[in-house]
């Protein structure tokens, strides 16, 4: 009996602690909120005093995102510091996030105010369900047209590059591939190649689309013949590169930069035959519970300030032309146009997706 009481007391204490810890939080004074009440950074007005006041009454914004964890945490931290609003929500890989959005929206219980995901095709599915509402951010005029949806329902948030990375202990630097065309040769020479499945997300499909368009189906077959290691996330792949478990991967600069800083013998090259890019998108949910905070979040994300945070902390290319250059571990990345960016055509991205991924799965022995 005594032990039962003890355990009951422990559970009650634990539950109370949990409730207390989850009840904390809420809005506060943001550093970028001016005396006038406007939200402004370096002269750029991000939200009017009226909007900011209404957002502060809502205290929080609920964001559903599939941005990588490090970038997402940095962005949320900077936003909370600037605005005093709290960022809540879910960060999950695109597939899982999409399932939740559709299920919750179907029952009219979607808590999200803002959605951030890569992949045009998914945004189109949500647009058809009338999930988003139009919103023109203050920086709208500065954003190039190709980064805006024609219906005004969402923006491209960032462009994310896929590069060739290698471990110099597993493959000598002079033998490391400098172009995608060299990848099958490196694999055939016995160096283990690593990549993300084509069906896994925007990065995997973007690379598959790029290589097939550029080199034809034969390229996939030559690469598959080297039995590459196929991972479900680019993060897991980078971790294996750092340990030398694989020699060469199709990766992202931020993860490689972090490994390099830790002392791992890794580096990356901007491929000579083009850098596949894919966009992340951002849209405001029409029936969100925090409509004003959502507008502030969207305004901030697309502002010079928000875009600079995304670029310098996340290592992705901003879509705002005046934002800071992307940085990886303190080092500035080359200008967007100089890395031979290859952004896919929307009709290819949407139209070829199902049939080519099915083919890719067959070629790489990854059938469903």
């Amino acid at each position, binding site marked *: 009996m005594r032990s039962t009481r003890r355990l009951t007391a422990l559970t009650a204490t634990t539950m109370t602690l949990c409730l207390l810890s989850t009840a904390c939080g809420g809005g506060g004074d943001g550093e970028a909120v001016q005396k006038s009440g406007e939200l402004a950074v370096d002269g750029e007005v991000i939200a009017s005093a009226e909007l900011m006041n209404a957002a502060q009454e809502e205290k929080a914004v609920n964001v559903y995102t599939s941005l990588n964890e490090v970038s997402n945490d940095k962005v949320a931290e900077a936003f909370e510091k600037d605005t005093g609003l709290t960022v809540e929500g879910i960060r*999950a890989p695109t597939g899982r996030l999409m399932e939740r959005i559709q299920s919750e929206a179907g029952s009219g219980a979607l808590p999200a105010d803002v959605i951030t995901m890569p992949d045009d095709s998914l945004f189109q599915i949500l647009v058809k369900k009338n999930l988003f509402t139009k919103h023109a951010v203050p920086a709208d005029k500065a954003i190039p047209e190709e980064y805006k949806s024609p219906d005004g329902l969402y923006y491209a948030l960032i462009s994310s590059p896929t590069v060739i990375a290698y471990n110099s202990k597993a493959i000598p630097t002079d033998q490391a591939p400098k172009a995608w065309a060299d990848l099958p040769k490196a694999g055939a020479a016995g160096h283990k190649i690593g990549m993300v499945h084509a069906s896994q997300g925007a990065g995997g499909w973007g690379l598959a689309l790029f290589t097939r368009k550029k080199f034809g189906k034969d390229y996939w077959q030559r690469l598959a013949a080297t039995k590459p290691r196929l991972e*479900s996330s680019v993060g*897991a792949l980078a971790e294996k590169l750092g340990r030398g478990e694989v020699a060469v991967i199709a990766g992202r600069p931020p993860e490689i930069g972090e490994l390099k800083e830790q002392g791992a013998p890794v580096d990356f090259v901007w491929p000579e035959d083009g850098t596949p890019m894919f966009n992340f998108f951002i849209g405001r949910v029409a029936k969100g519970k925090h409509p004003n905070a959502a507008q502030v979040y969207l305004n901030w994300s697309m502002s010079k300030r928000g875009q600079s945070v995304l670029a310098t902390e996340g290592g992705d290319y901003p879509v705002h032309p005046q934002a800071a250059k992307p940085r990886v571990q303190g080092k500035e990345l080359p200008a967007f146009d100089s890395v031979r960016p290859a952004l896919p055509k929307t009709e290819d991205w949407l139209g070829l997706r199902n049939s080519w991924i099915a083919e890719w799965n067959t070629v790489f022995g990854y059938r469903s």
Partner: protein
Amino acid sequence: MTDNRVNASAPAARVLQRLPLAALAAILVVLVVVPMGILLYASFVDVPPRPGSPPGDFTVDNYAALLSAGNRAAMLNTLVIGLGATLFALVLGCGLAWLAARTDVPFKSLVQTAGIMPLFLSSLVGALAWSLLGSPEQGYLNIVLRDLGLPDFVNVYSIPGLIFVSGVYYAPYSFLLVYSSLSLLNPELEEAAYVHGARFRHVLGGITFKLVTPAVLGAATLTLVFIMENFPIPQVLGSPEGIHTLPSQIYRLMATAPSQPNQASAAGAILLVITAVMVFVQRRVLATREFVTVTGKGFTPRPRELGRWRWPAFACAMLYVLAAVMLPLFALVQSAFRANPYTTGIAAMFRPESFETEVMAETLESEELQQSLLNSIAVGAGAAFAGGLLYLALAYYVHRTKEPGRRFLSYVAMWPAAVPALVIGLGFLWTWTRFPIIYGTLAILVLAFVGHLLPQGFQGISSSLIQVHPDLEESARVCGAGKIRTVWEILIPLVRTGVIATMLLIFILSMRELSVAIFLFTSDTQVLSISIYNAWEGGRLPPVAAMSLVYIAFLFVLTFVSRRWFGVTNRGV
């Protein structure tokens, strides 16, 4: 007059009599039947059964897709790995249980602890740690072998590797179920056999393990189902080399965008059929014999003397600890405290300048870790208590009453074992989004875990109940004790070890559970396993390892303290 009173109260009595069945059935419908029904429905239509979706058209295409070459290979791998690892886990679990419960092995409490030690590591953490230890190129074991001039042959990215890792981390299930039975076993039959000249191996195989057949068969069934249903191990160690199982295929179907829940549901339904067959076979085997081993008679257990095999037996137990706990811990410590993820050789592993404490310090201080640990504790405690009560009530109804519906309830209780946890999470997502009071809170996680862990809980408590002969309770009833008093004062003390071991297991399993929560958490209800998985997916191994070490330390303390608290000490001889 008297007859009339009896007749008038008869319908009311009948209603009261049916009340327990109605209550249990209602709970099972909510926790099991509805999510399962959605799964089966989804497998036969062409539209996911999300709230607000159209009903969809009937189709068998989802099942036809499972017959493709890739899926056939995945099904075969699931069976091969499942059977191989179950056999391995049974040998390990039963062996340790027998040593700890029935022999004079040295440091018995250490051997007993060895049996449950791997529970401190979730299969995700175990798989991650073994991917560091046994990856073919730069696994720590291969680095050591190369430095010693030996061939670097270790490769856990293979079917034998998957069998090994799965077997090691599922052995505690066999241990817990079999140990409890062995410790309650009256040794009279064994002693009689020895008196009549039977040899040790004949007694062990012909009497000891035959008497605990319900527990061994229960352990075998559960272990096989859990291994076949496990997602993290094949995902971490199999998928990169193209070795898929049904759960890793299901994850791929769910994680790709857009996801294909209908096909995933069909794969879940196939696993359900396999389990239903196994449970049926298990019940047929058990139904033919009687396995009561605890009776009103007292007994003084005597340990089996191992003689010169005492120390080799102890060494085997410690070898298991080395493979299941010590080596993975070494790998995690290397990752959490090493600055550079690249290791050149043995010397680099131990060079003081290679180590740093920054990541560990950051992890310990992080709000995310503290919040998610508290969430995990709350969910674990909630699931253990709510689940413990439900499982005990269910097991009592099935094994101790003659009421109708017992067989049906016991079948339903086993169903969740067959459904991949990912699909159960989806079932709850599709069902509960309409109830915002529950959805998005810790309560939805508790409910989902209680439903998902029903087979473990039910089987664990049932094994103990089956072994206690009803004579003892009937004697109490004859002496005038009421039903509740009989249960509280006679039955509960007798099955306490089993009930508490089960509740502890549910607590630990809930704290480790990843797949069920993956579709149900929010930023406020994120549990520790999700934090670890997210960090792993992001490729941030040092924080993964640091969080895993905190996780392991917490589970270790929890299990150790709980054992003492409840007096769950060595019941064996």
